[in-house]
């Protein structure tokens, strides 16, 4: 018996001529927080839909909780919880009525629903608001309630499709604490996101780009493996012009704009710092500071995607 709760082998999904998911393979261990990272339209949602048994793959196979997601979809559905960015709650029903409804469609008994309701109310901090209509809740509370409803039947695996989009940062942090608790209790979390700061919370990540997996590993591994050269954060004016000039230099491996700064990956730190100063004074670009920084996942991601695009062009 294999230990993994999700096993994906050579999975592809085509919509007409468009390949949404292109021959991907990966596996997820029990209790893991598994992050599926990619831009909008990269194939994240398609993959999740195949794993949840609501979309058939064009080829390849996905096993979820020991069942074939395509042929045994009905069995898969009893083992998984799913929450999308839309927080699928009935806004015209009260908190309690939403819980009762979702408990009901998962076939829980009255006693079970009561017990789970207590748990959800406690987990979401909605004590005293059981009779309030869901539409009156804040986005953060809705999100928690939606999560509670998605796990009401205590599934082995929880799929979260962009669970934090549109939620403010404080709630996002709280939300991830909750997710961590679930994972500690042994629930497997499969989460898609395009917030790269959130990806740091994951045990393991897969980067997906145009339907293909381009890298995978823990956040630390990804940073160490893919960015070995130093990264400099450059604070200057005329950032666009500065970037164009620097990208022409042979000692600059990569460069991109991050907000008001430039991030450039260079061959060697000291050499680069001196050269930047030289060039900028020649071109009369005023330089405020240059620092070496720790690579973030965002650096990794951008660097990987740029390489991918280059190899596609070749």
């Amino acid at each position, binding site marked *: 018996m294999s230990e993994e709760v999700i096993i994906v082998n050579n999975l592809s999904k085509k919509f007409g001529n468009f390949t949404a998911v292109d021959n991907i393979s990966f596996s997820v261990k029990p209790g893991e927080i598994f992050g599926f990272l990619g831009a909008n339209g990269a194939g994240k949602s398609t993959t999740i839909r195949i794993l*949840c*048994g*609501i*979309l058939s793959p064009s080829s390849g196979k996905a096993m979820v909780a020991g069942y074939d997601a395509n042929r045994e979809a*009905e069995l898969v*559905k*009893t083992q*998984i919880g*799913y*929450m*999308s960015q*839309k927080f*699928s*709650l*009935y*806004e*015209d*029903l009260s908190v309690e*009525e939403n819980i*009762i*409804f*979702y*408990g*009901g*469609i*998962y*076939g829980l008994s009255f006693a079970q629903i009561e017990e789970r309701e207590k748990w959800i109310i406690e987990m979401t901090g909605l004590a005293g608001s059981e009779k309030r209509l869901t539409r009156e809740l804040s986005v953060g509370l809705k999100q928690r309630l939606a999560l509670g*409803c*998605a796990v009401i039947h205590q599934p082995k695996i929880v*799929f979260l499709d962009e669970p934090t989009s549109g939620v403010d940062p404080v709630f996002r942090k709280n939300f991830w604490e909750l997710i961590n608790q679930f994972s500690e209790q042994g629930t497997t979390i499969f989460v898609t996101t395009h917030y790269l700061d959130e990806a740091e919370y994951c045990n393991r990540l897969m980067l997906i780009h145009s339907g293909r997996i381009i890298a995978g590993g823990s956040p630390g591994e990804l940073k160490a493996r893919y960015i070995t050269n130093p990264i400099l954060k450059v604070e200057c004016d005329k950032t666009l012009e500065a970037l164009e000039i620097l990208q022409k230099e042979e000692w600059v491996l990569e460069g991109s704009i991050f907000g008001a700064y430039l991030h450039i990956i260079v061959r060697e730190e000291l050499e680069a710092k001196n050269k930047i100063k030289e060039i900028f004074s020649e071109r009369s670009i005023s330089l405020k500071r240059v620092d070496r920084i720790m690579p973030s996942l965002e650096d990794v991601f951008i660097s990987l995607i740029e390489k991918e695009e280059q190899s596609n062009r070749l």
Partner: protein
Amino acid sequence: MFKKLKPIIKKEFRQIVRDRRILAVLLFVPAFLLMMFGYALNFDVKHISLAVYDEDRTPESRNLIEQFIHSEYFDWNYYLNDKKAVDKLLDNEKAKLVIIIPNNFSKKLKRGEGAEVQIIIDGANANTASIISGYVNSIIQNYALKIISEIFQHSKVLRLNIPLEPRARIWYNPELKSAKFLVPGLIAFILMITTVISTSLSIVREKERGTIEQIIVSPIHPIQLIIGKTLPYMLFALVSAYLILTVGYLLFDIEVKGSQFLLFMVTLIYLLAGLGMGIFISTISDSQQVAFQISALITILPTFILSGFVFPIKNMPMFIQVVTYIIPARYFLVAIRGIILKGSGLGAFWKEVVFLLIFNILIFGLSWLRMRKIKI
């Protein structure tokens, strides 16, 4: 099966009851519409405004005028002294009918020469005009017969019996009230609109808000979802149908002459047609707005015009008649008018029931195909 339907049915009930607007649309608007239509959509022609220009001013001419006043159809509003006023009254629609009695009227009558009376009818509404013309003809002919028989009686030469006399009896709606004819049609009209709109909106709303996605990833089958969702609407529609019947009884004295059971069954089959249409619309629209527009478009006018509700199908051009075959109300109307007004049994409209059932199979089949293709 029922265990899984229960939470959906309960939820849907809660949503309907909570949303006062939907509740109103389902229950009270139909009865209200019936009152409005029942009183306003009236083809009875009564209280016809009458103007008289009597140049003759003799007992004979006054006698003729009295014939009109004594019938219940006319209101004698104007007595003219001037021929010019006639045009004005007709132009302003103050009078629908003008009777002009020339000054030689009584003389000609006495001489037996055949007197003439000029009748002017406002023909703007062809329907009303032809009815008025019918009333006028029969009043004048009766009056003429009366004069002839009086003459013969006075002469004592011979007794005369009028050789032919029609004795018309009108069945099913003896007072010829148009409400009686309209109420069954209204039930068909109102039920179709409310069921199609409410079911299509309730399903599309789940699509729009993304809640349907949450249900698809649960062990509930989409078919279970749809059955669970539509059952409450069906129930409300039935309640609504009986409310209409009650209002029809209280306000328009319409009693169900036929079998209540048959009425219930036929109504149920008809409601299923509406639900099927609603479900089909929800499979082809992504927003409530689109669903509402399509629902309104394919129910309101076709059910009003093409079902035989107001306009007889037999008078329509062949091409339009063909179109009416896909209007479920067309079949239901025959059945429900039969049951309510004539007390007819299944034998009188079994063909219509079969057509309705075929329509249901087709519309549910189509929806099923659409749903499988898109997984909702």
